[in-house]
């Protein structure tokens, strides 16, 4: 008999259907990977199982745990169940812990609550559990507060709470999405080991097929509140039947078609800027520091060096990748290169001229030639303006040079360039989907006909299928307009797909650089190696899967990150 058996689950939130006839089951000791894009209803299925649905939700159907119906169960009984028989790990470890209580106390609370044991005893058990998740009390005192731990460590604490009482079912909702790749791998390994040890079942919710391929025994795919396909993992990846599953798989492994890189100035019909020879933008030993808090009245304030003597150059038509984990200084470097912030050391050269010496006209020239696309498709547009006005904003740099008719022509052109319709100029940003908005952002960057576009994590916030489309678009535009890209990302797969050259950045320093394929296939620097090894890779995961026995738990080492604050 299945441990968890969901039958024909319908869920409405304020009358809006969210889940339709969802049926899933998980056997004891089994790991089910639940896959789907955002809004597909994965999380709601999990919350329905926990009976922690948001306000206004009403569920019909049946959810049985060990044969006992959970829907409509008395709240008191549910409370006794939660944390003991079913527990859950959430996506965002930074906010999942109460900031005002020590981690020890928060773990200990699980024991106190369900076992009612004296405090000292619970604290001792808590220490044991923390040790089990790789936070040995000797090194990570349980009287620390959450803010003193890194994201990965916090996620370990959340996991400790979840596995404290060895539940029958552990639900993990995108448990690693918010983490850096290296940490992500460690957390996944840890979770696999823990459920294996305890013989628990795991419902792993993720958007990442590679993660599922690595971890799950069976896979279910959800789309628009329905389960579209379900099967044993190997068989699933071997022979998907549903078109959506196939599309998902296709998108996950998608590599855009790129023309081979051409030497600058040799392609006929490229933009004039591309023919001018020499790199467009050069960073020469750039340093960017932020002043920390002063340690005392007479001691100077400590400095945080976000960017430390970085040297790089981008030639016309070239696509350069900049890879690193969050907080390594990528975005700061981008802002400095865009002349939005001044470097404290080193120089930035725009077409051979030091940016700090440029006059207003020179800066305007720079801005025309160097445009940017940001990560967040929601935050990069002023919600009060129409798409046409937003896209045309950089034409401010050309004021006096072009008239209204030309402006409208350009808007229409860039909109169709990015696959939107000229009529879309009359819409407001909220009327576009996330992927369309990112297209709009690209259109905005294109409108001054730049030579270089800095792309700061342009596809990270997008679902896989959309991501593939946007990458295709970027590749196509690069070819058509002979654009140079500086592509900033934490995702090695994306960087591999779209760049010629890659720089690996860690803690403000470029640790390795070279042609993309060479760096990623044969990394020289330790850090790059770790990064490559940790990155989820569907093909590799499937290959490993075939040969792998269940690995021994090796999650006992805490992640390397230093506590923040």
């Amino acid at each position: 008999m299945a441990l968890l058996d969901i039958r024909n689950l319908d869920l409405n939130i304020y009358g809006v259907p969210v889940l339709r006839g969802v049926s899933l089951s998980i056997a004891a000791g089994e790991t089910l990977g639940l896959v789907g894009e955002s809004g597909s209803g994965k999380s709601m299925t999990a919350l329905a199982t926990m009976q922690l649905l948001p306000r206004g939700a009403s569920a019909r159907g049946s959810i049985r745990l060990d044969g006992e119906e959970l829907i409509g169960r008395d709240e008191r009984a549910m409370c006794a169940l939660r944390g003991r028989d079913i527990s859950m790990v959430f996506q965002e470890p930074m906010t999942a812990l109460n900031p005002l209580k020590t981690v020890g106390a928060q773990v200990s609370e699980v024991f106190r609550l369900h076992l009612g044991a004296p405090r000292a005893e619970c604290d001792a058990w808590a220490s044991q559990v923390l040790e089990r998740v790789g936070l040995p009390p000797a090194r990570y005192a349980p009287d620390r507060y959450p803010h003193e731990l890194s994201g990965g460590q916090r996620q370990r604490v959340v996991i400790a709470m979840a596995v404290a009482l060895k539940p029958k079912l552990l639900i993990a909702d995108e448990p690693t999405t918010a983490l850096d790749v290296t940490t992500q791998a460690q957390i996944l390994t840890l979770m696999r080991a823990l459920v294996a040890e305890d013989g628990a079942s795991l419902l792993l919710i993720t958007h990442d097929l590679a993660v599922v391929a690595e971890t799950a025994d069976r896979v279910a795919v959800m789309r628009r509140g329905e389960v579209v396909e379900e099967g044993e993992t190997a068989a699933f990846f071997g022979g998907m039947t549903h078109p959506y599953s196939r599309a998902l798989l296709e998108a996950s492994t998608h590599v855009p078609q790129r023309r081979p890189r051409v030497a600058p100035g040799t392609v006929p019909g490229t933009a004039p800027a591309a023919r001018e020879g020499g790199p467009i933008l050069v960073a020469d030993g750039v340093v960017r520091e932020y002043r920390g808090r002063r340690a005392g009245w007479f001691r100077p304030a400590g400095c945080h060096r976000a960017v430390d003597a970085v040297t790089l150059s981008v030639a016309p038509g070239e696509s350069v990748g900049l890879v690193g984990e969050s907080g390594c200084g990528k975005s700061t470097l981008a802002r400095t290169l865009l002349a939005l912030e001044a470097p404290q050391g080193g120089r930035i050269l725009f077409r051979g001229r030091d940016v700090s010496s440029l006059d207003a006209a020179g800066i305007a020239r720079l801005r025309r030639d160097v445009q940017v696309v940001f990560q967040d498709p929601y935050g990069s547009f002023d919600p009060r303006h129409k798409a046409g006005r937003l896209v045309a904003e950089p034409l401010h740099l050309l004021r006096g040079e072009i008239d209204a008719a030309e402006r409208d022509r350009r808007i229409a052109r860039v909109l169709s360039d990015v696959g939107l319709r000229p009529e879309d100029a009359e819409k407001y940003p909220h009327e576009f989907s996330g992927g369309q908005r990112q297209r709009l952002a690209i259109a905005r960057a294109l409108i001054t006909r730049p030579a270089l576009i800095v792309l700061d994590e342009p596809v990270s916030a997008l679902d896989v299928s959309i991501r593939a489309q946007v990458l295709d678009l970027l590749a196509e535009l690069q070819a058509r307009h002979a654009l140079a890209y500086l592509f900033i990302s934490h995702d090695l797969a994306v960087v591999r797909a779209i760049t010629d050259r890659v720089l690996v950045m860690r803690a403000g320093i470029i640790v390795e650089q070279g042609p993309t394929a060479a760096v990623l296939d044969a990394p020289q620097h330790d850090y790059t190696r770790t990064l490559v090894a940790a990155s989820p890779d569907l093909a590799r995961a499937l290959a490993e899967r075939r040969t792998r026995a269940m690995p021994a738990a090796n999650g006992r080492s805490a992640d390397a990150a230093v506590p923040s604050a």
Partner: protein
Amino acid sequence: MLAYVGRRLLSLAVTLAIASAIVFTVMEILPGDPAEVMLGTNARPDTLAALRAQYGLDRPAPERYLAWAGGLLQGDMGLSYTYSVPVTQLVAERMWVSLPLALIALTLTTLIAIPVGALAAAKRNSATDVGVMTATQVGIAVPNFWFAMLLVLVFAITLRWLPAGGFPGWKAGAWPALKALVLPAVALALPQASILARVMRSSLLDTLGEDYVRTARAKGLTRAQTVRRHALRNALIPVLTIMGLQFSFLLAGTIIIENVFFLPGLGRLVFQAITQRDLIVVKSVVMLLVASVVVVNFLVEVGYAAVDPRLRRRV
């Protein structure tokens, strides 16, 4: 932490120094002469001059400023023109009315607001919630002095349970003194409590939407347990901020309420001192009020650190 406190203290001192200069200047501009008020309509010019000399009002302004500010630094607020006693003594006497009044009001505010706000948040959208929200909405709209008048009408004039005004002094016994403070404190507390209850409610609602509350629920805590053990303390942080701000409103409110109830407190003292042009009292008491607001806000900030471990190391 120490360095932070030191830095804040320094800026506090600068603030007070500027405040003292402003207060002094305003007093200089203020029309009217304390000597004239003291001596009335039959005073002769030579008598007025003699009295001014007695007060040292004939000396140049910068000299007087330095003398006053220097005195303040040593805890000497000068000698009241009208009462001929040290201002410190006056302030000390009045403090025994104002401070208990403010504290009672603040306590009442907190005792009413926090549970009521928490209840409304916990029972969101219930009849209780709607009732609380309506009541607090009205509470905010009621001017405290008008409320004071109504309280007097009902409890002092009609029912005669409590005095309509005045203060018998603590020597008359704790009970009569407290009785005299009940109505003023209630009048002060009601609008403040209404505001605070709403802040508490929305803060708790925000907190209840936090991820860690969901984590706690996933651990098996009931809603009530979650509120008690996890949400409440977190929700109190913004409440603390508002309470800090309210202190200055409370002080301003005290001035009016003390005048409605004729309580011999600091507010009334400064009010009378202005009309009598007892400028030395006005200057010193205003400085005291400014200082207390600044200091309270400082304490609130330090108080965050006590509540919130995230700030303990950083500040």
